[in-house]
C-alpha cells in the first residue's frame, strides 16, 4: 500500500485530492485536518516523518495552468521526510484569501518556527498557535507581503531613503 493510500484510508473525509506527478507523492487536505494528519505522519511507525524538510506557500491568484485550488487562493506546502524509511511526502493545505490562517506545527517540528515566520512574512498567512509570528526576511515596517502575486515586482519600499531637503 502506498503512502498516499495509507493516509487516505485514515482520513477519508479530509483529503481533497492526491497526485504523484513525477513520483512526488502529494496530498491536498483540508486545513481543519492539518494537525491530525501531521501528528499521524509523525507518530505512526509506518510513516515516521521525523523531518519537516521544507514549508512554503504558493499564491495561485490568476493561475493559468487550469487546476485551480478549489478552496482558496493560497496553498501552504509542507515537505516531510522520513530518515528511517527514506521516503518523502508533500502535504498541501488550501487557504482562502479572506482569512488566511492555518494551524502552526511548531510544537511538532522545531523547524516549523522559522519557516512559518517566513510564510507569514512573504505571503501574509497566519499560523494559529505560533509563539513568535513576526517578519523574518523583511523589516517590521515593510508594507504588504512580497511573494503575493499582486505585489508588484518593481515596487520599492526603502527603509532609509535619501532625505529631502526643501
Amino acid at each position, binding site marked *: 500500500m502506498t503512502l498516499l493510500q495509507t493516509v487516505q484510508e485514515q482520513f477519508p473525509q479530509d483529503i481533497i485530492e492526491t497526485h504523484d506527478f513525477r513520483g512526488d507523492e502529494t496530498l491536498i487536505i483540508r486545513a481543519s485536518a492539518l494537525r491530525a494528519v501531521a501528528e499521524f505522519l509523525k507518530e505512526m511507525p509506518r510513516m515516521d516523518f521525523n523531518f519537516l*524538510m521544507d514549508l512554503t506557500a504558493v*499564491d495561485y491568484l490568476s*493561475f*493559468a495552468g487550469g487546476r485551480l485550488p478549489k478552496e482558496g487562493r493560497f496553498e501552504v506546502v509542507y515537505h516531510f521526510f522520513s530518515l528511517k524509511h527514506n521516503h518523502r511526502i508533500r502535504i498541501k493545505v488550501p487557504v482562502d484569501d479572506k482569512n488566511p490562517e492555518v494551524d502552526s506545527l511548531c510544537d511538532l517540528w522545531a523547524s516549523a518556527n*522559522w519557516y512559518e515566520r517566513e510564510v507569514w512574512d512573504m505571503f501574509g498567512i497566519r499560523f494559529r498557535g505560533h509563539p513568535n509570528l513576526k517578519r523574518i526576511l523583511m523589516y517590521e515596517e515593510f508594507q504588504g507581503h512580497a*511573494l503575493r502575486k499582486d505585489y508588484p515586482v518593481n515596487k520599492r519600499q526603502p527603509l532609509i531613503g535619501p532625505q529631502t531637503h526643501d
Partner: protein
Amino acid sequence: MTETRSMLLNVGPSHPAMHGVIRLIMEVDGEKIKGVDVEMGYLHRAFEKMCETMMYAQCFPYTDRLNYVSPLINNVGFALSVEKLLGIDIPVRAQYIRVIMSEISRVTDHLTCIGATAMEMGALSVFLYMMKAREYLYELIEEITGARLTVSYVRIGGVKADLTQGFADKALQKIAQVRRVLVETDDLLTRNRIFFDRMKGVGKISAQDAISYGITGPFLRSTGVSYDVRRAQPYLIYDRLDFEIPTGTQGDNLDRYFVRMAEMEQSLRMVEQCLAQIPQGDVNGDLTGCVIPAAQMVDRAKMGQTEEFIEDEVTTDPTLQGSTRKYYNAINAPKKDVVLPAKEDTYGNIEGLMNHFKLVMYGHGIRPPVGEVYFPVEGANGELGFYIVSDGSDQPWRVRVHPPCFPIMAALPKCLVGGMMADLIPTFGSVNMIAGELDR
C-alpha cells in the same frame, strides 16, 4: 546584596567575525550567553520573486548567488529540478561533468568554512593555506566554466561546455596539491591544544534536536546521523561512486571540523573516480570541414553561402568554448525544445537559428507541463532543494529554494545559550552560514 542585570549586546550585522551580514542580539550575563535572537534578511534580494519573472534558463545566474561559495551545486540543483519537471534525462558524460564540478565546489566550500573558522581563532596561516588550496580548485573551475564565482555553467538538459583538453591531468595534479594542503592544515589544527580546547564540547547539539530543526549536511552528520542525499536518494551518477559518509558522535564544533575535513577527502576521491570512469566524448569524427571563426560563418550565412557548413566547425568566443557541434551530443540531452542548438547550427542554418530564437525569446522558451516538483541535492551545507511549480508557461509560477543553512541558523540559539561569549566565534564559524542562501 549585589544586584545583577544582564546586558543586551549586538553582534553584527556588519562585524568582522560574522561571515556575511547577520545580526545576533545577545543577552549576556558577564561572559555567559543567556539568550540569542537571530535577525536576518540583510542580504535579501528576492531570489524567489525574481525567478517568477524570468524564463527558466534565466534563473541560473540568480542561483549562482545563493551559496556563492559553491555556486555549481546550486546550478546543478536547479537544473535537476527543471529536468524532473520536464521529465528528461541527460547524457552520462554530462552527468559525470556535473558531479565533478559539484564535488570540486564542495571542497572549496569546506575549505572556506574551516579556513575562516581557524582564522577567527587566531590561526591565520591555516586560512592562507586553505585559500591557496581553494585557489587551485578555482583555477580548475575557471578553466571549465570561464568564471570563478558567478559560473552559470549548468544548462537545463546538459552543461554549457565540455571539459577541456587535458583536464583530467590538470585536475589530478591540483587534487594532489590540495591534499598536501589538507595534510599541512591537519598538522596545524588537529593536534593543536588551543584549537582543540576551543572546539571540543562547544556548540553542542543533540541528534534529536538537529532532526527536529530539520538540519542536514555536515552539521547533522556531526551528531552521528549518517544522512546524505547522495547516498539516500542518489541522483546523477552518485550510485556508481565509492565513497564514505563521515559522521561524528558529539555534535560539537570539533566533530563538525572532523566531518568537513573527512568529507573533503571523500570529495577528492569522487572526482578521481569520475575522471577514471567518465565516458569519452561523442566526438564527431567525420567533421572534415574547415575551422572558421563564428563571425565569418554568420557573414557567409547572411549571403546564403551555406552549402558546405554541414561539416564546418566554428571557433567561438572563449566563453562558449567547448559548446560547439563537436562536443554537443555528449553533453546535451537530445531535446530540441529544451537545449539550445550547437553554435554551428545557430549561425549556419535557418532551422538552428529558429530553434535558438524559440528558446531565448520572451513568450517562447522552455515550457514544462503543468505540475510541481521538489528535487533535493546534497549541497555543501546540507540538503539543497528546489520546489518548482509550473503553470505550463515559459516562466516558473513559483520557485522555492530550501536553503540548507536556514534551519541551522534557527537552531543557533540552542548551540550558543549557556556557553561563553568567546564560543560564539567557533560555533558561528562551524555553522558555515552563507548569507546569500540564507536570505535569498
